[in-house]
């Protein structure tokens, strides 16, 4: 097959390969977020790749712990500093321990013990500076499409999303799957009305059943909440119903078989296309609807995505702290209005000036350059959104009945 080198990746000691070499500062509760942000800003201002992420609540949430463990061991992350406040449930020591076990540089402390704001910031800067020095020595190794995990998401959809932007990402998904890579999509709440189609793509009977279960759960969840994943902006853009939006959204997953249904913070165990289920298994929590696009992209990243494609029609600006986000639109008006934010214009598919195969090739070139270190517009702008909301899922047992 195609043995063309994608980029020189960063070799992690656990065998994974990253396209970025970040230090991640993790807060275990809202109270230590300020100190973490200040340390990160110090380094961001001098052009270093240092980011923050964390849990806001004092309380434990199993899904959030699983997510944070995945971020602390993400291929794009080389070093992790976890800062706790001192009285929350989430243990900074346990997060740092897993990061260390995966071969990352790792450290942790409580700001109460460090002596408060100023002393914690100074201590954090010293630790992160040391990590950055060590990360300069991370070996570079050839990375192939087989090593890559991509994610697909859409946000701020209009009628062009389904006809151009998502169709293009579907073509990129097909390419990646055909060349031994891995691709993850989600947004089953934007698959409403398409049960038969989605189930038909399951690779075997078990996966077909998993897709059907996840679909039924999503319909129950949205019905119980009384809100579906379509909003006034979509309607202004010409999308009338969730079914119409769904069909446009699901084309971004391409046409290859679905290999598995993943729960949040589960990694694919084989190559190909996977469907991520982000809907809670129990409890009617609005989590899924809050800050949906950035937080959903963080869930794709918790599945291991090195890079996420975000397709928009109305326009979008967001990024994530861990993986680069490539923003695509098929709406020429939106692209012209928001060129600083949007990385790729797919309008040529609609006016017939560019074929799907030519545009796919142009996008793969863009993908390679970003993997090689070229910054996306979200990275240039300093976008790093996404909040970890409580969720309730069992990664092993998928219940068949829901009582929302």
């Amino acid at each position, binding site marked *: 097959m195609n043995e063309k080198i994608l980029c020189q990746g960063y070799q992690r000691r656990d065998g994974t390969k990253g396209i970025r070499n970040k230090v991640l500062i993790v807060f275990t509760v809202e109270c230590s977020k300020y100190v973490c942000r200040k340390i990160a800003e110090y380094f961001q201002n001098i052009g270093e790749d240092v980011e923050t992420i964390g849990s806001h609540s004092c309380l434990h949430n199993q899904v959030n712990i699983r997510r944070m463990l995945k971020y602390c061991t993400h291929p794009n992350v080389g070093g992790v500093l976890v800062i706790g406040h001192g009285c929350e449930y989430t243990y900074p020591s346990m997060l740092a321990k897993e990061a260390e076990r995966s071969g990352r540089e790792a450290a942790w402390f409580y700001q109460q013990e460090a002596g408060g704001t100023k002393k914690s910031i100074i201590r954090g800067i010293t630790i992160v500076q040391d990590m950055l020095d060590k990360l300069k020595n991370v070996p570079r190794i050839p990375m192939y499409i087989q090593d890559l995990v991509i994610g697909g998401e859409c946000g701020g959809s209009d009628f062009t999303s389904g006809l151009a932007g998502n169709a293009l990402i579907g073509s990129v998904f097909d390419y990646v799957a055909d060349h031994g890579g891995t691709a993850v999509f989600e947004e089953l709440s934007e698959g409403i009305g398409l049960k038969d189609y989605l189930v038909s793509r399951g690779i075997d009977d078990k996966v077909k059943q998993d897709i059907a279960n996840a679909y039924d759960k999503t319909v129950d969840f949205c019905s119980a909440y009384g809100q*579906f994943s379509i909003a006034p902006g979509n*309607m202004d853009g*010409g999308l*009338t*119903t969730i*079914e119409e939006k769904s*069909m446009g959204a699901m084309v971004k997953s391409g046409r290859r078989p679905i290999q598995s249904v993943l729960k949040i913070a589960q990694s694919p165990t084989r190559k190909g296309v996977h469907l991520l289920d982000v809907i809670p298994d129990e409890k009617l929590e609005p989590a899924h609807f809050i800050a949906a696009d950035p937080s959903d992209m963080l869930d794709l990243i918790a599945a291991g995505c090195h890079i996420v494609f975000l397709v928009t*029609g109305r326009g979008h600006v967001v990024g994530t702290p861990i993986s680069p986000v490539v923003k695509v639109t098929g709406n020429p*008006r939106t692209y012209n209005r928001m060129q600083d934010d949007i990385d790729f214009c797919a309008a040529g598919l609609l006016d017939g000036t560019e074929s799907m195969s030519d545009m796919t090739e142009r996008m793969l070139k863009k993908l390679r350059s970003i993997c090689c270190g070229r910054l996306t517009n979200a990275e240039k702008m300093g976008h790093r959104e996404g909040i970890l909301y409580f969720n309730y899922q069992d990664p092993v047992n998928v219940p068949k009945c829901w009582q929302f």
Partner: protein
Amino acid sequence: MKKMDQICYIVHKTDNVATAMEDVTAGDIKLTGENKNRKGEMIALQQIPFGHKVALCDMEEGDQILKYGVCIGIATKKIRKGMHVHLHNMKSAYDFRSAQLDPVTVHAKDIEYKMY
């Protein structure tokens, strides 16, 4: 000066709506895309905003609206060929809340923006 063609795009051959590729005014439109079974010309009876849908045939209340070859909703009143198809004359078969939005402002009627 000759007016440029007003293009409406048909995604799938079984669709009964087409998508306006620009702000369409009432009058002649040109159908592109999967329009193999139809003539390329039609008349829009109303304004069709950029990205919105125009009916390709007469429809009765309860008829399925087809786009991408799948049902994207149900007609809530009689729709004539050439009319604008949107929240005012169709609704989701699943999403009961969006069917109650104000069809013009797209504002939700069940949430008050009112101080107490």
